[in-house]
C-alpha cells in the first residue's frame, strides 16, 4: 500500500508541475519538434534521395528515444541537484521508505507522464514527414519495458553521482550529447554498444517500427541481451545510488546550499 501511495504522490507531483508550468513544457516540446524539423530538412535537402524515406524513419525513432533517454536518465540528475540546493533533498531522505524508493517512483512517474508527450511528438513528426511507422504495441511494449529498466539503472547512477558532485551540471550537459550518439548510432557500426544500457532496445524498436518485425521474429540473443542489460544495470545503478547516498551522509552533502 505504501508503494502505491508513494507512486501516486510522485505521479501527481510530476503531473501538477507539468500542468502548472505548461508554457515551459510546450516550449520543450516545441524545441524538440524544431530539432526534428532541422534533421528532416537536412535529409530532404542534402541526403541521398534513394534512402530519404528510410533515413527519415530512422530519425523519427532515434530522436524520440533521445528525448526519452534525456527525460528518464538526465533529468533525475538535474532534479537531485536542484533539490539539494533547495533543501528538499534532506526531507526526502528522511522518508522511512528510503530515498531510493522515492527516486524510483519519480523515474516511473516521469516516464509515464512524458510518454504521453512522446506519443504526441511521434504523431507530429510522422504527420510532418508523411512517414507512417509500424506501431505494433504488443511487440514494442515488452522491449520498451526491459529497455526502461536498464535506463532506470543509469538514472540511479546519475542521481547518486549528482548527490556527491556540486558541479555536476556541466557533466549532465555533456551527457545530453553522449545520449545523442548512443541513440543515433546503428548497432551494425559498433556491435559492442548492444551492452550499453539502452542501445539494444532502441535497435530492436527501430526494427519493429521501421521494418515491421514481430515479437516472435527476434532471436534468443536479442532478448538475452535485453534481459541481461536490465538485470545488470538496474541493480548496479541502485547499488551505486545507495553507496553515493551513504557517502553523502558521511560527508554532509545532502544539502548543497
Amino acid at each position, binding site marked *: 500500500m505504501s508503494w502505491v*501511495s508513494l507512486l501516486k*504522490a510522485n505521479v501527481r*507531483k510530476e503531473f501538477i508541475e507539468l500542468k502548472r508550468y505548461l508554457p515551459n513544457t510546450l516550449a520543450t516540446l516545441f524545441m524538440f519538434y524544431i530539432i526534428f524539423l532541422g534533421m528532416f530538412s537536412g535529409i530532404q535537402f542534402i541526403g541521398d534521395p534513394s534512402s530519404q524515406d528510410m533515413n527519415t524513419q530512422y530519425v523519427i525513432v532515434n530522436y524520440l528515444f533521445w528525448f526519452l533517454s534525456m527525460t528518464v536518465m538526465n533529468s533525475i540528475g538535474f532534479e537531485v541537484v536542484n533539490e539539494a540546493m533547495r533543501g528538499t533533498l*534532506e526531507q526526502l531522505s528522511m522518508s522511512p*521508505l528510503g530515498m531510493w524508493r522515492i527516486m524510483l517512483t519519480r523515474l516511473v512517474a516521469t516516464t509515464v507522464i512524458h510518454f504521453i508527450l512522446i506519443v504526441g511528438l511521434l504523431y507530429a513528426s510522422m504527420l510532418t514527414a508523411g512517414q507512417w511507422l509500424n506501431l505494433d504495441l504488443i511487440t514494442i511494449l515488452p522491449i520498451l519495458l526491459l529497455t526502461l529498466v536498464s535506463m532506470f539503472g543509469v538514472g540511479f547512477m546519475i542521481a547518486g553521482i549528482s548527490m556527491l558532485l556540486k558541479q555536476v551540471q556541466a557533466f549532465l550537459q555533456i551527457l545530453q550529447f553522449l545520449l545523442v550518439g548512443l541513440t543515433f548510432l546503428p548497432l551494425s557500426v559498433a556491435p559492442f554498444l548492444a551492452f550499453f544500457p539502452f542501445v539494444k532496445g532502441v535497435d530492436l524498436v527501430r526494427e519493429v517500427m521501421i521494418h515491421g518485425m514481430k515479437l516472435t521474429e527476434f532471436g534468443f540473443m536479442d532478448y538475452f541481451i535485453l534481459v541481461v542489460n536490465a538485470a545488470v544495470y538496474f541493480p548496479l545503478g541502485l547499488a551505486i545510488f545507495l553507496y553515493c547516498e551513504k557517502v553523502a551522509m558521511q560527508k*554532509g552533502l545532502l544539502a548543497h546550499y
Partner: protein
Amino acid sequence: MVVGENEGRMRNMDSIIEVNNVVKTYKKRKTKEQIQAVNDVSFTVQRGEIVGLLGPNGAGKTTTIKMICGLLIPNEGSITINGIDTTTNRLDTLHHISAVLEGNRNLYWRLTVRENLEYFAGNRGQSVKEVKDDIDMLLKQFRLKDKEHELVNRLSRGMQQKLAIAVAMLADSEVILLDEPTLGLDIETGYEVRELLTEIAEKHNRTIIISTHDMDVVQALCERVIIINNGSVITDDPVKHLLKVFELKSYTLTLGSELDDSQIEKIKEAFPSYVYTADAYESLLEVDLEKSEHIYDLFDILKENHTIVEGIDRGTINFEQVFMKIVKGEEVHELGVSS
C-alpha cells in the same frame, strides 16, 4: 548480543533519544584540513520532553540535529531513537522522527500548501484519503486554511515556516526536531510560531528538540537546555535551574563613585563576567559570585579607593543573559553538568 540489546531497551524505557560519545569531523574541500564539528557529545532526551539545543554559530548544533535525523553519519559514537540505532537501522528510526531543518526551504515552492502536505505524506507511504482529516485539522490549527490552494512561493516567510512545521507534524512521529524555527521571522510572526509550538508541546505530547538562537523560545518552551560550544556540550541543565542559579549568583551594586583603573583590573581578574557601567548619574557594577562569601573579596577591592556601596540588588535575569554568561565563561559549565 540480542539479549544485550533488549536489556538496553528495557533499561532506557523512558529515554527516547540517546546520544552516546558522538564525534563528527569534516574535511575541508580545498585544504583537506580536518574540522571537528562535534566532539564527544553525549546526552539523553526523555519521552515527552522539550529540549533546547543552544550554542553560538558553528557550535555544532545543526550537525548534532542532522546526526539524530540520520542525515549525517557520525565518525564515532552512536545515536539511538527508541532503542534503534540510527546508523545501522536508519529507515526504522525515521518512523519515529520528523524534522524542520531549513524551514521554508524544506518545501516545494511550486506546489500549493495542501499539495505539499499531501506530497510529503505520500512520501511516507500515506494516501491522500488517509491524511485528509489530519491535513484539514492542521490547516485549521496553523491558520493556513484560507491559503490551502496558494502556491508556497506566494506565501510570506512566516506562513512558509508554519507550513514546514505542519509538514513535520503530519508525519505523526514521536520526535520532532526543529532547527531554528523562528529564524528570519518578524516579531509578530515569531511570536505566532512560538505560540504554535507551545500549543503543539502542550496538546500533542511530542518529544521536541529545538535548536535556536531565540531565547524567548527557549524560556517559553524548553524544560531543559543543552548548550554546545566548539563541538562539545558545556551545559545540560533544566532551564528553571539555570535561571535560579544565575539569579542567585548575580548581584548588581550601586556605587557612590566611579571605579579607578586598578580596581577595574582587579575586578576583571576576580570576576571575569563583570559588567561595569558608569555615567554622570550612576555607577553600576554587575558581578556573578560563585559563592556568596566572595562578595567580601569584592568589598576589599572597593575599599581600596574608598568606593561607597549605596545598594546591592539580587539580579533578575532572563535566559539570554544566562546563555551569554555560560558561553562567554565556559568554566561555569561544571555547575550545569553536575545537576
